[in-house]
């Protein structure tokens, strides 16, 4: 167990190192400059050069990289050029939204995708199954911003059931503020629930063809019990990793939804940071995302171990 953890940490470190080099190289190939965004339209060349020097952007890239890694190792992700604030606090703020949004989305996905997938699998081949699977595919095929705009129009502007957009932190207004995330999480959940639904259905069907399910049926236990005790948990194995990676992806890939719903999330933060070339933020966010991804990877592996006694950590 410990040696496993150590080994994991080792490969993680290597991955991170590679990732950081890529991040850095990548960011500095991007043309454009934070200076222009900062100084705007009317800046003169000397103003630009002076500020560039002040921000250290005129140093050789290697030096900038070493400088940055040095600080990162000390736990300092630097300061945002744009916000004039520590990158860590900028990210932390976005992370709250993104984490809650992703969590809420995954809850929808779990309560919609998994049970309906199970029902479709149990009623395999019937009209119900065809209808549900078809509807799921349809959901997966609709662009999220479309779903989002209509959700806002219907549930916020017309019916007034939910706030249209934005998200005040729960640390300010308490958990009632979660209502701000209802519509965006639904918009995000639509395609993901559809994919999980299909995955659940497929792996339930796979498992239900296993010999041990026949053994269970032969014992005389009721079909629902067979599903609950023998199919469901085994089918979950395939679903668990999809869950983990969907969650990780949601943190950063909810850009479109965050834009539509004006949410202060990580995705939008990083997209905007790319557009305004806020290097320290981009680097910081991507680093955090990579770490989260690797963590999710680890959690998925560990949950495999919990769910499947055959799996040994290697």
């Amino acid at each position, binding site marked *: *167990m410990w040696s*496993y953890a150590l080994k994991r940490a080792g490969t993680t470190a290597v991955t991170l190192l590679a990732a950081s080099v890529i991040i850095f190289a990548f960011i500095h190939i991007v043309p454009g400059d934070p200076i222009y965004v900062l100084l705007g339209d009317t800046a003169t060349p000397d103003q630009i050069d002076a500020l560039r020097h002040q921000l250290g952007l005129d140093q050789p890239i290697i030096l900038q990289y070493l400088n940055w890694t040095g600080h990162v190792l000390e736990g300092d992700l630097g300061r945002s050029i744009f916000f004039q604030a520590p990158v860590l606090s900028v990210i932390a703020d976005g992370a709250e939204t993104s984490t809650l949004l992703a969590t809420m989305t995954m809850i929808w996905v779990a309560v919609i995708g998994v049970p309906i997938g199970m029902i479709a699998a149990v009623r395999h081949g019937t009209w119900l199954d065809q209808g549900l699977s078809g509807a799921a595919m349809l959901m997966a095929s609709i662009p999220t911003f479309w779903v989002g705009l209509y959700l806002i129009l219907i549930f916020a502007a017309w019916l007034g059931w939910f706030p249209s957009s934005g998200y005040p932190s729960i640390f300010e207004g308490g958990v009632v503020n979660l209502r701000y995330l209802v519509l965006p999480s639904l918009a995000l959940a639509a395609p993901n629930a559809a994919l999980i639904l299909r995955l659940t259905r497929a792996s339930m069907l796979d498992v239900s063809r296993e010999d041990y399910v026949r053994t269970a049926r032969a014992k005389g236990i009721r079909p629902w019990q067979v599903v609950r005790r023998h199919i469901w948990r085994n089918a979950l194995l395939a679903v668990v990793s999809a869950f983990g990676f969907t969650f990780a992806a949601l943190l950063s890939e909810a850009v479109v939804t965050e834009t539509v719903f004006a949410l202060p999330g990580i995705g939008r933060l990083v997209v905007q940071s790319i557009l305004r070339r806020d290097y320290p933020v981009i680097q910081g966010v991507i680093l955090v995302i990579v770490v989260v991804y690797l963590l999710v990877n680890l959690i998925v592996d560990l949950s495999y171990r919990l769910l499947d006694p055959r799996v*040994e*950590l*290697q």
Partner: protein
Amino acid sequence: MSGDVILDVREMMVSFSARRAGRKYRVQAVDGVSLSLAQGEVLGIVGESGCGKTTVGRTIVGLVQPGSGTIKFKGTEMIGAGSSSLRAMRLNVRMVFQDPNASLNPRRTIGDSVAEAGDISGFFKSRAERSAAIAATLTGVGLNPSFATRYPYELSGGQRQRVGIARAILPTPSIVIADEPVSALDVSVQAQVLNLMMDLRDQLRLSMLFISHDLGVIGQISSRVAVMYMGRVVEQAGTRTVLEHPLHPYTRALVAAIPKPDPSKRILGAIETGEPPSLFTRPHGCAYAPRCPIASDRCLVDVPTLRSVGTDGRTIACHNV
């Protein structure tokens, strides 16, 4: 044991690394096996599941790298041989696999599969020669030459195994290693395939290493038999001798446990065979000792080596017989 020795395996050791319960184990799948095969001879290898039979065969055809030992084909060392001489030897030492289903690529025609060895080595001079050879070989194994354009799923199990054999004999090799070629087949089909192999053995003067766990089949086709247990040869002698007078306690259990198709000779309840040990927790001394009815204290510490016993070139690895 007659004629020239064309295959000579000495002290072959093969181990795999495997993981169980979070720990890394070395599985000694083959633990110092020595065999030799003469021109035109069929040597049977028996032993229960997991004792290393397949691994011996796979090592000889170069699919597995042995940890140590030598494999000489007609006096030339095969391990570490240069690629050109190795290619020639590959053509001469061929394998028939156990599962006729799995050993044919579902997306290639029967003809392509049969001609594969020739295609790889550039054996055929022309397309015409190639299709003639395929037709002849298919006919040789009792299949209609028109099968050449078919796909494996269109064939029955017995037909597929014939294709597996056809593939191993075009171009004609010196040695065929048959890894349980009939154990996936029904009795009636099994008989057809066995007949075919016996015909080929006689017509082409093939040497064969015939791997099986079915002593009945071995008795039919091979003249000599080696009994393996946990990666080692524990007894080797002429087939009749072994089947009729097994000496090693494991061979005895094996022979006794074969369900005889004769309701008047029931053995159920009469024999006690014990649990096989796990390969991961190999006993110190004789691997069979924990199950052995005649084990002595010595068997728990000393690994018995093969020694000659009696006539008929019989060798046996047991302290107590």
